[in-house]
């Protein structure tokens, strides 16, 4: 059920949270109307009239003690419902399925039990899912409004959260801890729902660290799990994508395009156009050829050879990209003559 003030209820927690929300909401409305209603009435009734003086303020000790002490009972009850709900959110069932979440500027990486990865969170419906979060750079926070859950991803620290989806569908996932923005605009795929007014270029940052949660039936979910180990289907041919095509898909889905252009312009990182086979000057004074091994090393240990004129800010993709995906990226870069 989606209400005027809250998103649809798609997790087992949502009902409890919304009950607490609307309990406080109606309590607040009643208190507000009572207090402000009385105040406004007094302002009207006791407006200054010639010859009428204010009545000296007396004492009403009982009244004062009442409104000092009695809110405690309401507050204790509010604490109770909030705490109950919070403990439910904190303690994951023992049989919860685990998905590893790695946050980095400005994308999410989800690693599934079979070792596959995706940028969209796929989960099966009616099954408790436990997320183990970490961050590679600054603090991020994973927020799924439809589930009413949120947890920070802190560098150097694992945090966990869990939920159980109650229906299939697709909903939004946001980053809610401010994490900056890229300099300038970034090229995005055509047809990307996030394309801005600049056509196929847009700003990237905290606000674009948005993805989707796709809640699937058990069968759909299993199909998905298998698919992430193989190259995706090329929509043009209807068959499994070639390594070059897969590399191009990964270039966008892994958000390499946040920092690397394919049109020759330098962004946060060097362009990929004409990169393959070129001589590179490194910041430490050494040089080398941009061959397959160099590209592989740059993906897995990006700060080992930083090209002159750039900052070593790229996060490592070790553990995120499998060997055949790295091969596909190299194949794609080779096509960018």
């Amino acid at each position, binding site marked *: 059920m989606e209400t005027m003030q809250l998103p649809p209820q798609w997790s087992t927690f949502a009902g409890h949270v919304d009950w607490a929300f609307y309990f406080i909401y109606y309590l*607040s409305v009643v208190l507000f109307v009572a207090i402000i209603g009385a105040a406004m009435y007094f302002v009207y009734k*006791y407006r200054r009239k010639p010859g009428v*003086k204010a009545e000296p303020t007396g004492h009403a000790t009982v009244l*004062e003690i009442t409104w000092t002490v009695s809110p405690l009972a309401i507050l204790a009850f509010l604490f109770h419902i*909030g705490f109950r*709900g919070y403990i439910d959110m904190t303690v994951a069932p023992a049989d919860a399925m685990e998905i590893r979440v790695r946050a980095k500027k400005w994308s999410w990486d989800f690693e599934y039990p079979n070792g596959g990865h995706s940028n969209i969170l796929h989960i099966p419906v009616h099954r408790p899912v436990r997320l183990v979060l970490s961050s590679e750079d600054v603090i991020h926070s994973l927020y799924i409004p439809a589930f009413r859950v949120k947890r920070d991803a802190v*560098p150097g620290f694992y945090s966990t959260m869990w939920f159980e989806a109650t229906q299939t569908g697709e909903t939004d996932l946001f980053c809610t801890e*401010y994490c900056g*923005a890229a300099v300038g605009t970034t090229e995005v795929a055509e047809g990307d729902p*996030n394309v801005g007014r600049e056509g196929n270029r847009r700003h990237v940052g905290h606000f674009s660290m948005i993805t989707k949660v796709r809640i699937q039936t058990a069968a759909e979910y299993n199909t998905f799990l298998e698919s992430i180990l193989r190259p995706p289907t090329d929509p043009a041919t209807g068959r499994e994508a070639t390594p070059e095509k897969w590399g191009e898909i990964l270039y966008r889905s892994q958000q390499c395009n946040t920092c690397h252009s394919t049109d020759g312009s330098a962004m946060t990182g060097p362009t990929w156009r004409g990169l393959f086979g070129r001589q590179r000057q490194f910041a430490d004074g050494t040089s080398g050829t941009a061959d397959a091994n160099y590209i592989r090393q740059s993906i897995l240990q990006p700060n080992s050879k930083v090209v002159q004129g750039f900052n070593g800010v790229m996060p490592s993709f070790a553990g995120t990209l499998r060997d055949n995906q790295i091969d596909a990226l190299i194949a794609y870069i080779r096509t960018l003559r």
Partner: protein
Amino acid sequence: MATEVAGAHGHDEPDHLAPYLSPEAGRGVKGWLLTLDHKRIGLMYLISTLLAFFMGGVFALLVRLELFAPGRTIMSAEYYNRAFTLHGAIMVFLFIIPSVPGALGNFVLPIMLGTKDVAFPRLNLLSFYIYIIGATFSLYSIVTGSVDTGWTFYTPYSTTSQTSVVSMVLGVFILGFSSILTGLNFIVTVHKLRAPGLHWKRLPLFIWGTYATSIIQVLATPVLAITLLLLAAERTMGLGIFDPALGGDPILFQHFFWFYSHPAVYIMIVPGMAVASELFATFTRRAIFGYFAVAMSSLGLALVGFLVWGHHMFTSGQSEWATMLFSALTMLVAIPSGVKVFNWTATLYKGSIELTTPMLYALSFLVLFTIGGLTGLFCAVLNTDIHLHDTYFIVAHFHYVMMGGTVMAFVGGILYWWPKMTGKLYDEKLAKVSWLFVFIGFNTTFLIQFVMGSKGMPRRYYDYLPQFEIYHKVSTFGSWLLLIGFSICAFVLIKSLRSGAKAPPNPWGSAGYEWQGTESPPVMQNFRETPTITRGPYDYHLCTDEELFDGFPEDLKK
């Protein structure tokens, strides 16, 4: 007091105990810049904090304008991040924290206490110049690359950001000392310089609130200073305190930061409450109901304020025990806040209420602070906070408290004490028009943000999904109404300075000590003779008609 002092003329010789308050000492530019007179220091604070409010307001308008439409509207993402950071940092550190204590407190507090000046006049001037130096550092940061960390400076973002964080952090560090010195000065002044007969039970509630605020300033600000110094040390020397890459703990920064910044919320709101109490008393012509409870609730907020910092960190990964404890303690904030709201409402009962502009601001304070307080319940209750944390719901909540509370009280206070500060009256009719724009504009801007937030719109977003566009449009429209309202208000005050009618000593007919027995504006040494206090500041039933109805000149004719 008052009776034997009011209207006593012919005592123009300065008091020999305070030669710096002689008319000779006050002439020219030097007489202002090197003044030790609390009134002039207060006015200099007023001008500086209003300039800061203007700057912070411009950034707020830019942020709202950028959010008018999805995608790029007027600026790039990097500049948006700087704009909202500067809006927050300027409003918190350069405007709200020094606003009421620095400007109104400095002007009014010694007069209310029936004394010539604060306890340490030189320290008072020093505190103002420390504020100016801190503000200069912050401005230097703005022109040299600015800051994009948010006003909270969370690590490791702030230790890795390419922007000029160190100068901003040093600016805030320096501003902290200004805050500490003002607090210290006020505490000593309240203890040592009360006029004869002014015992604690006769202290105006503005003094009680300012006193409670001063205690927080003195106790909490050093923690911020240490935290920011550690942050600067980590950035410049690679000392591993907060950055996990250097072996530090980023959550530790949040604990340190909020250990100051949550009490700072009370540094910001308690003075607003203190002003509101004065306004309610004067414009109902009645003592504040439950005076003792209202006075103690300020101290209660100061105390509880130190115990709840962890409620900013419910999603951070702090231990469940800490989360539980902080949620429970946070509930306690509702008690002293509720006491104040109930007592103000009861004060209106059987009062003689006059809807002047300052009173309209006081009533706005009551309405908006009540909304701000009640929406705080959603944030204190754990499971609802998990959903609402870092969304626009939080943005709306604290704007209702900070802007709906403190700023409304501050503007109300300025308009209330304006005749005393400047000796000029202003156009009440036009001031009421500006109030209407401010009140409606404020609610248009922020009420809708509660809905946007509970629907899931995260804060500090440069861009947003299409389902949030309508809320952002309404909110931005509201910000324009606020602009109109504050512009009219500025016009009213400037017009009053240039061509306002001369103010009588007590235009509002208040029994408050600062209105009785002083001229408008007060003479350099405030009083021509040290007053002896013989009754409370709200004892309207003990005042003669002459004392109370020494109102606007046109009222006198009636």
